[in-house]
């Protein structure tokens, strides 16, 4: 179960796996996520579903190597299996015909924004995409995004490719252009989603974000993923992961994302040392 059938390095730190998970693939919808474990000793890590193929019974997950677990995950290849995969979790995106929608994907957030953009396009929306990354080599799926958008704006923070801008710049221009925008989705790092929300707020455009809080079980049991939205405590795993970006307490979310920073660093260093030692014994 949960065998990896394809792997692609989208960027030096961004990996794509296609995983066998027929039942999840049959049932999942855009906006939902899965929880994976790499090994018996592993953490439970939430990853948004980047794509699914119901016929083949496969899911696509995309992740960025940041800590020990994602580093270990990135060593797997075709034929390897995940220790577990649970899903689909969270509420699906509300797909409707809104009119004109803007889909903002930043960095690894380009992956989960893709199936939502596709569904919105299929539902008859006029879809404007904005994708961006820090630098050229972190950018991926420009071609895929083009197939599901009517217009696509590409930018890099450092100007190494396409337009030199943060994703909020073209977003602001769109808001100011006088075109009617019915809804905005923003998925990416918390700081990016915060500024996407701040950009659209003065224009009163409903903005949906997908929050990436720390989780354990993903079924509402532990309460680790609590976020404050509109002054109420919500559980990201069962009430989300999508919320109204204008209502999210971003500072709290970002503080809570840092809960295990020092331990994550320790685990990664220890893992790298172990890998190093292993390499030395092999050679």
């Amino acid at each position, binding site marked *: 179960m949960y065998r990896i059938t394809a792997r692609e390095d989208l960027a030096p730190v961004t990996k794509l796996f296609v995983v066998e998970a027929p039942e999840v693939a049959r049932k999942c919808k855009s906006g939902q996520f899965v929880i994976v474990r790499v090994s018996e000793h592993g953490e439970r890590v939430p990853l948004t579903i980047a794509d699914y193929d119901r016929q083949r019974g496969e899911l696509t997950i995309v992740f960025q190597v940041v800590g020990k677990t994602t580093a270990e995950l990135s060593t797997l290849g075709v034929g390897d299996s995940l220790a577990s995969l649970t899903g689909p979790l969270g509420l699906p995106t509300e797909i409707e015909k809104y009119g004109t929608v803007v889909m903002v994907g930043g960095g690894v957030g380009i992956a989960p924004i893709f199936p939502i953009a596709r569904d919105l396009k299929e539902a008859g929306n006029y879809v404007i995409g904005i994708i961006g990354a820090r630098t050229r080599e972190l950018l991926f799926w420009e071609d895929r995004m083009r197939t599901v958008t009517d217009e696509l704006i590409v930018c890099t923070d450092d100007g190494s490719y396409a337009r030199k801008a943060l994703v909020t710049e073209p977003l602001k221009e769109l808001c100011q252009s006088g075109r009617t925008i019915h809804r905005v989705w923003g998925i990416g790092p918390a700081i990016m989603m915060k500024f996407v929300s701040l950009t659209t707020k003065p224009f009163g455009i409903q903005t949906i974000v997908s929050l990436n809080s720390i989780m354990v079980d993903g*079924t509402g049991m532990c309460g680790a993923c609590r976020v404050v939205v509109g002054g109420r405590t919500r559980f990201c795993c069962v009430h989300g992961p999508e919320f109204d970006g204008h209502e999210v307490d971003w500072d709290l979310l970002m503080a809570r994302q840092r809960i295990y920073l020092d331990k994550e660093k320790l685990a990664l260093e220890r893992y790298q040392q172990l890998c190093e030692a292993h390499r030395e014994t092999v050679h």
Partner: protein
Amino acid sequence: MPKEIAPRNEMPRQDPRVRRRNFNEVALGYDLETALAEAERCLQCKKPQCIAGCPVQVRIPEFILALREKDMWRAVEVLKDKNSLPAICGRVCPQETQCEIQCVLGKKHEPVAIGRLERFVADWEREQGMRTPPLAPPTGKHVAVIGAGPAGLTAAGDLAKMGHKVTIFEALHAPGGVLIYGIPEFRLPKDVVRAEVEYVQSLGVEIRLNTVVGKLYTIDEMLKDGFDAVFLGTGAGLPMFMNIPGENYNGVYSANEFLTRTNLMKAYLFPEYDTPINVGRKVAVVGAGNVAMDSARCALRLGADEVHIVYRRSRAEMPARAEEVANAEEEGIIFDFLTNPVEIHGTDKGWVCGMRCIRMELGEPDASGRRRPVPVPGSEFDMEVDTVIMALGTQPNPLVFSNTPWLERTKHGTVVANEENGRTKMERVWAGGDIVTGAATVISAMGAGKRAAADIDAYLKDPNGPWWVGPE
């Protein structure tokens, strides 16, 4: 001819000074000699009272007699005829309020240590290698059990013995429910849970892990797709918070998260295991049930210097088992009674640095029959703490109901079910355990699983007759 009654045999336990820093089991179990001596104390009453106190009706005097006669397999057989999880029950059942409180010996002396004997017999069997009992011939019926906790495992075990095909659906990556994620290793070793789960599997029960019912399938789909009956035993897994300011600061945990990280994910073995946990120097656990005791004792073992139980009522109203309170006290847990948090203080980086509390006094009894705690005006004070664990109880997890509006629920979110047989208002759906009662004990969940299994069996043999009999 009244015989002399020997004193109850003490349970050997790890020294509190040592055990407060390790996760090894606290209670070490009787040896054969002690077990036989304790079994000798049983009066073998003609009309035993103890059985009535047991939610699964274990024939207690009979298994004790077999033990006394050193017919160990017979003891196992009697025990397991009613209880599929005896090594677990022998450790975590509140015997003092169930079987043992009924024991005739207890009127003048101390009751027979029934739980310790149950544990002894179950541990003996596990050491020998468990035997699978004879199963009834296959009935061709297929039952879905949702949740691999105490209620689900018990229902599944009984149904399998009756010849039904059973599939358990479990959301987590390990079976056992609260036995795995909630109750710590030092009170219930996970090897014991694994062995009893394997026993249930040996009866032919299939367990499908990582399968979230309500997301992957609805109950309607299960009934349509070939299951003849569904038993719902998803427990009460939704944590409660106090809704006081500062509750989302880093360092405030629900007991569920704290225990899940520690027990299921083995955070106490970090970084050998990947899941981290933060335990500060001074920890406050809010609440005084078994979950609060477990959280406090885990926090101590994870390295805290000082752990407080903060409880708004007094010692007399504490819901935790007396034995676990005593264990916690021996290990150095500090109890702050008649104290209630009103706010959690945080640093400018968002980390817990203190807790403002108010003193309470007890007024008139409330709906629970316990005296209602009332704040003493002007008695606020600050506690210096860097970790706060909220152990305030749990509510039923609503996830499984998300697509099943016709399953009637109470205003507390629990499922409406007939207590006698577990039937819900939805045909062919039974429920039992914490999902029906709200947070309760392992054994009461098992009792509910057992009653439901008996009724499911009866229904599958003869599905005619009214589905719901009882109050509307």
